[in-house]
């Protein structure tokens, strides 16, 4: 524990800017993955343990598309689109068969998919890690705000993730489709009784969740190593985000992801040996005070 260093950082504009940027990028990428987890749980009550696989495959698809097209934009779009399609196939072929089954059965199916696609990645891309490399447009020096370092690439990623958060939030609250999704989250039988095609609705929810995770994997690929099993590490934090924010709440996922990002950003200065511990303590504290999470609906 180094509270002096933390105090010094919090009173230094350069440190505040640098660590806040660091917290924002960690938090926003986490949000993109966790938003899918919470959306799927909110509507379908499915805890999608295979969500990290979408993130991993999104990164690998983007890596391949970048190699072919040399366009990072196309690579990100391809990663998101491929995982949206994969999400629909996953829901239709597997998850739709266990909606009414025991949660253990759902868990087993998700875990099987994780293991199968880890091996598929090994076969297709090899067991060793890959690095996409920074797109040429972002191979520029960082800019400085009040002496703090802000990398242009991260600024763009934060902007994209924030835009998606806004679109997702407004889409769910203002559009007819969003209202249907929210209604299905509360009472799917009634939504079905009103003549709404819930089969299609559920597939679309998986497409959105998969697409967001795929996009996060693709967006992060230039700076993170791609390796089989990489989805697992982000999955754990995504579930923490979902639990802290409240299962099913997109706003909760955003706030929780940013909280975790900031704990990482500043915790590493003040509690370098205990940053992960801080996150779990925060989760326990929130669950004790609000068992349904920050923005979750009390049962």
């Amino acid at each position, binding site marked *: 524990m180094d509270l002096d260093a933390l105090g010094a950082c919090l009173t230094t504009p350069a440190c505040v800017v640098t660590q806040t940027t660091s917290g924002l990028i960690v938090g926003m990428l986490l949000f993109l993955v966790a938003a899918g987890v919470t959306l799927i749980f909110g509507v379908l009550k499915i805890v999608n343990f295979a969500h990290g696989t979408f993130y991993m495959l999104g990164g690998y698809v983007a890596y391949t598309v970048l190699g072919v097209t040399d366009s990072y934009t196309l690579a990100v779009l391809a990663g998101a689109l491929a995982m949206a399609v994969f999400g629909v196939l996953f829901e239709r072929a597997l998850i739709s068969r266990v909606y009414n089954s025991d949660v253990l059965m759902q868990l087993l199916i998700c875990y099987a998919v994780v293991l199968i696609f880890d091996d598929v990645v090994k076969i297709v891309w090899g*067991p060793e*890690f890959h690095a996409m490399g920074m797109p040429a447009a972002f191979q520029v020096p960082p800019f400085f705000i009040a002496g703090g370092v802000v990398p242009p690439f991260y600024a763009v990623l934060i902007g994209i993730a924030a835009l998606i958060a806004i679109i997702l939030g407004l889409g769910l609250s203002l559009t007819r489709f969003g209202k249907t999704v929210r209604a299905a989250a509360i009472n799917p039988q009634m939504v079905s009784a009103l003549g709404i095609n819930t089969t299609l609705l559920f597939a679309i929810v998986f497409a959105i969740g998969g697409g967001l995770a795929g996009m996060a994997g693709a967006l992060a690929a230039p700076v993170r*190593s791609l390796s089989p099993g990489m989805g697992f590490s982000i999955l754990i934090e995504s579930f923490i985000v979902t639990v802290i924010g409240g299962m099913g709440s997109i706003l909760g996922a955003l706030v929780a992801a940013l909280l975790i990002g900031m704990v990482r950003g500043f915790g590493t200065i003040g509690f370098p040996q205990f940053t992960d511990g801080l996150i779990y303590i925060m989760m326990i504290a929130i669950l004790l005070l609000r068992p349904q999470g920050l923005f979750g609906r009390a049962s």
Partner: protein
Amino acid sequence: MTRTRKPGLSRRSTLALMGAGAATFAAPWVARADSKKLMIGMQSILSGPIALLGTSSRNALLMEQDRINAAGGFLGRQIEFVFRDSKGQPQEAARLARELVNTNGCELLVDAEASSGAFAVQEVVRSLGVPCIHTNSETSSLTADPKIRAPTAFRVARQGVHDAVAGSIYLSGYANTNKINKWATCAPDYAYGRDTTAQYLEFFKKFKPDIEIVTEAWPKLGQPDFTEVITKLIQAKPQALFTLLYAGDLSAFVNQGNIYALFAQMKVATPNVDYPVLAAIKNLPAGIQSATRYLETFPDTPANKAFGEAYLKRWKERPTNWSWQNTVAMQFYEAAIKKANSLDGKALAAALTGLKINTPFGVDGTITMRDDHTTINYAIGWGQTTPKPPFIVDVKPSDWGKIIEYETEWKKQQKYI
């Protein structure tokens, strides 16, 4: 009632055909089970984040298998490897090593595990008395500690204490030249990262007592995002960073460090740069002080270059540090078996002890197996990175005289001798 035959194949004919087919396809496997063939067991990390190191070990051994078989095999018997994936789990490594000997009939072992697995395999080897060469464990105590050393187990690999002495001598000189006192460290948060960092610092402070460690960072192994680590390092404003990150973690760290211009804000030194890492980093910064894990141009000899080119031609990628270590293990087996004219564990152990072989990977073209069952005189050098091949230039070979002098002192401190 008359029984009529249906057209097409009868059930008996079908079964006969299937039997003949099975026998035909099984024939190569029957041939493989030929008792004359000498089976050699190898288990390593062939899946997971550092699988590239395990597969580079396997690749090198397959090249050696072809070379040795073309030269007549061991004692007139063709050799064949049985490869197993331990996934980096020590208990699985030990189970596989025992299975390779007891079930698969392997008469020699190549233990290509990292240190955690190698210590588990060591106990299996001790109980079975089978000849074994550890090819990838760098933890010094595996062979330096007489209580851990096993009679028929040897190590053909870098040793932590050798690298720590060599690296500290080089970096202290570099720090003196560039007037660098304030250092930061960044290493994976598990035994290797913490122990090896401590060992480097112990020697580093011996050669340069005025260094100050201004911050330490311990990211998790396989951590996807190093942003908070990088920003913490930048905030501490060290003059130089020493890092023990490796493989995918090192690649991700460099890629993420690049966008924070970390390499312009501090000097960086690492002993863990290998060809796959160099290839994976798309914008390798120039001027990182780096040890040579394996480098085609160090030692700068035709034989070393030929090995690198042959490996690249066959596997479409460059070798790693683990590749040369496994190659040399087979060269030691070859020389020892010829000398002992036997595959017996005790006879081979006697032949291996003190054995000196010619090999492209020795600093002077030779490597010696010392009587404490570990190798010396392999190529250790430090230079600096450059974005294009050969990736590390201005390589300065380390002084083995000094390495052994300080290693002996360290062994006395540890009460190993």
